[in-house]
């Protein structure tokens, strides 16, 4: 028996080294040894348990931007930080669509908006304490926002939405430079439990902004700026027992956390460990052999592991979740011939999206996209403006559009892709092949992802000068609503001299106004519907060619308990819920 296992191991390593796709055995019964069925964690909590104790262990093949709640942009850190940092609001730890619901966390209720949605008031729960037993006050929440949004000289990793939306946000210098007792004046703390935000424009998604870990309180006296990450003061159920920069951390129970003040966390495990910079293949092997509870990155197993888990005995332990991101081609409306809507529509009709998806790795990698908003975002509306049979394209309709565009024989153009993203390069090559059928000849130009937006695709002058008509793009929402997704990619205000993310250079006054109107609307249902309508407007403009809704192929080890996918955090597992039988 051992000989066979050893032989199998050698064979799989050989296959791996030679780049071959090793397929596992055929003993798939669709179950993971009582660990739920395939995709079970998409809509339910797998291995639901109320048992306390054990250690949840995570591994990650990279390092975080920072575990400091005020200095991170990474989705997985936002998810993970909820173990030690409680924000004003959070996403409900629940299965399926329920996981997209915003619920109060530090605050006793969701924000109370003024009629114009420009003032938001939160009241903190009673009895909140830090790990050292000192009380948490609204001033600490204010300070946390000040340091995270207004001190880029020390904390530059996180988003700066509060800076962008708060009154006077462009003038305040941050707590390390402005030593006045008031801080930013547009955040008021009339008493220790009340915090009031005054915005310069109506913003109905504010409860979503309040879910960012930046609203987790930080005691000013304990803040050491960039070094705070080494001594984070916990407001959640766990506190740091150890932290090693770039290597990992261990969390243990925070004895001053009171479950009565926290209706969303069960805090079942006694300990949580995380290791960074673990070889990605080792992470997969550790998941398969049940040595760890989850891959913290939450983006799925490595390509070489995919065949093994999809067809082998572990198939029942997999969940293919939407990653909250759409891969699309941006057609720049200021680069000929895409300044003509019919040439844009020719691409929409002519592209064989199924072949592009196949080239990228097929269904485990995602679904064919027909909208810009991915299905996991609040406001997604299913439609297909350019529907073709099997998503294989319609050459006749494409050629008809080419005629109307004045290019009956097609045209030449350039398509960009990020050289260090194999899936994007594969996508570009498949698009190039597919559009030959309608006479569109594409030259692919590749750029490094680190400078893609700052030096190339996000710089309009460069794009125009080099006639980059088609630009590969992938986008995920900073928070899972239509506005959180669309604002930075279709709003005219997102066109910047450098670092822009509206690669179409779409500046349609109707779309801009629709976005402004919708975000000012405090009627949740009407606002949510508006996002789908705006998505349709973008597709009617034809400057966005949605290609793939990206997916993660997640693997849940047998010992993992309370496992469910959260769409609020890019389709990874919910780390607040997760516990372990170990």
């Amino acid at each position, binding site marked *: 028996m051992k000989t066979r296992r050893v032989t199998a191991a050698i064979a799989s390593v050989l296959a791996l*080294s030679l780049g071959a796709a090793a397929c596992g055995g055929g003993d798939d019964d669709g179950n993971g040894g009582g660990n739920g069925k395939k995709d079970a964690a998409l809509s339910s909590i797998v291995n639901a348990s109320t048992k306390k104790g054990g250690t949840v262990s995570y591994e990650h093949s990279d390092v975080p931007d920072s575990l400091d709640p005020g200095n991170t942009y990474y989705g997985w850190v936002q998810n993970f930080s909820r173990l030690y940092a409680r924000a004003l609001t959070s996403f409900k730890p629940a299965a399926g669509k329920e996981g997209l619901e915003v619920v109060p966390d530090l605050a006793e209720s969701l924000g109370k908006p003024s009629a114009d949605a420009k003032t938001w008031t939160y009241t903190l729960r009673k009895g909140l304490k830090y790990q050292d037993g000192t009380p948490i006050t609204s001033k600490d929440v204010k300070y946390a926002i000040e340091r995270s949004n207004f001190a880029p000289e020390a904390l530059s990793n996180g988003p700066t939405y509060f800076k962008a939306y708060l009154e006077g946000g462009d003038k305040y*210098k941050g707590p390390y430079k402005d030593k006045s007792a008031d801080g930013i004046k547009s955040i008021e703390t009339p008493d220790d439990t009340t915090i009031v935000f005054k915005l310069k424009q109506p913003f109905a998604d504010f409860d979503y902004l309040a879910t960012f870990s930046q609203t987790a309180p930080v005691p000013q006296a304990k803040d050491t700026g960039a070094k705070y990450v080494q001594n984070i003061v916990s407001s959640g159920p766990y506190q740091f027992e150890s932290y090693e920069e770039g*290597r990992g951390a261990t969390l243990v129970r925070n004895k001053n956390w009171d479950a009565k003040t926290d209706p969303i966390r069960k805090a079942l495990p006694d300990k949580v460990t995380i290791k960074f*910079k673990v070889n990605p293949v080792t992470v997969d092997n550790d998941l398969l*052999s049940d040595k760890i509870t989850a891959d913290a990155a939450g983006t799925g197993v490595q390509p070489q592991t995919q065949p093994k888990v999809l067809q082998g005995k572990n198939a029942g332990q997999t969940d293919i979740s939407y990653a909250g991101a759409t891969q699309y081609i941006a057609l720049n409306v200021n680069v000929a011939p895409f300044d003509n809507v019919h040439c844009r529509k020719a691409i929409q009709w002519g592209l064989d999206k199924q072949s592009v998806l196949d080239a990228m790795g097929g269904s485990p990698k995602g679904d064919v996209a027909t909208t810009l908003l991915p299905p996991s975002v609040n406001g997604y509306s299913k439609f297909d403006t350019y529907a073709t049979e099997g998503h294989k394209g319609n050459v006749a309709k494409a050629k008809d559009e080419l005629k109307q565009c004045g290019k009956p024989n097609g045209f030449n153009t350039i398509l960009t892709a990020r050289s260090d993203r194999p899936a994007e390069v594969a996508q570009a090559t498949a698009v190039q092949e597919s559009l030959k059928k309608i006479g569109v000849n594409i030259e692919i130009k590749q750029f490094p992802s*680190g400078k893609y937006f700052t030096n190339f695709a996000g710089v309009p002058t460069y794009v125009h000068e080099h006639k980059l008509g088609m630009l590969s793009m992938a986008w995920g929402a900073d928070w899972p609503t239509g506005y959180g997704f669309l604002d930075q990619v279709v709003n005219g205000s997102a066109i910047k001299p450098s*670092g822009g993310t509206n690669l179409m250079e779409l500046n349609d006054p109707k779309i801009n106004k629709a976005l402004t109107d919708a975000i000012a609307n405090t009627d949740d249902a009407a606002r949510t519907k508006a996002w789908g309508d705006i998505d349709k407007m973008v597709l009617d403009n034809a400057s966005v060619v949605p290609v793939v809704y990206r997916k993660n192929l997640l693997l849940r080890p047998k010992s993992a308990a309370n496992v469910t996918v959260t769409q609020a955090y890019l389709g990874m597992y919910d780390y607040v819920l997760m516990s372990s039988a170990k």
Partner: protein
Amino acid sequence: MAAYIIRRVFGAVLLLLVVSAVTFAIFFLVPRLGGQTADQLATQYVGKDANPDSIAAVKQNLGLDQPIAVQYWDYIKGLVVGADYKFGPEATHCGAPCFGYSFKSHVEVWPQLTERIPVSFSLAIGAAVIWVISGVTIGVVSALRKGRPVDRIAMFIALAGVSLPIFFTGQLLNALFVYEVPIWDSIEYVPFTQNPADWAWHLILPWVSLAFLFSALYARLTRAGMLETMGEDYIRTARAKGLKETTVVTKHGLRAALTPIVTIFGMDFGTLVGTAVLTETVFSLQGIGAYAVQSIKDNDLPIVMGVTLVAAFFIVFCNLVVDLVYAAIDPRVRYS
């Protein structure tokens, strides 16, 4: 001998200064010569909200607004007396030797290096013991049994060892002994001071995979050296004097054949401390090599500088030691 040692130490320090100047120029002067402004260099450390204020703050903190010579002087000064940085409510003192401050991960470079040096050193020292013992033994046996099955088998294994990349042997050992026949629960670095037995136990696989490559190389080198030495006249004389064959081989043959081995060992060991990237990556060990790769990926210049200097130090230091050991093992070498 003492004068020689002092002279060599001074030479080594001078060499490290030259390395630091060249490295500094590559990272901070060449981009300027290539047309990048101080603002552009600072922008990459500002984060997503780059604006004139934040760029100016980083520029000032990093000293990018100073002439290159001043920047280099400040860097060297930091190594000797430390430096101050302000990335929070209060200024932070980076004590000597201050190798700078990472503006990406916001940590002082030196403590990061000192945490990782023991990992790389442990990896290199264990592997070195294995490869020297096994490589030299196999080489000697092969040379003494030239053309016989033992020699052929040993040289075949040596060829395989040289040919197989570490990411293959490492992955194979990992897959076999951690997952398929799990003799080891995990491969990780346990500090020697914490538990010497655990330290050794958890590093055996990385040592073996690294040593497999090197011992193959050393076996071939030793074999070649031994074949040459054993054909020398003084070996025949030693045998004619009636010395035991073991004495002839070890005291007269191997001792002479070892000189080039020691030279190359010094180079290999010194280099390996900073460059065992593949082994560290395969086994997820957080050593200097893996740290170098990460910092290059992040464009984190102060860390790249620090790693380069530390790696250079080990190479220079090991070469110095080798030169001194020469005298001890080869009577023909004498220093005045």
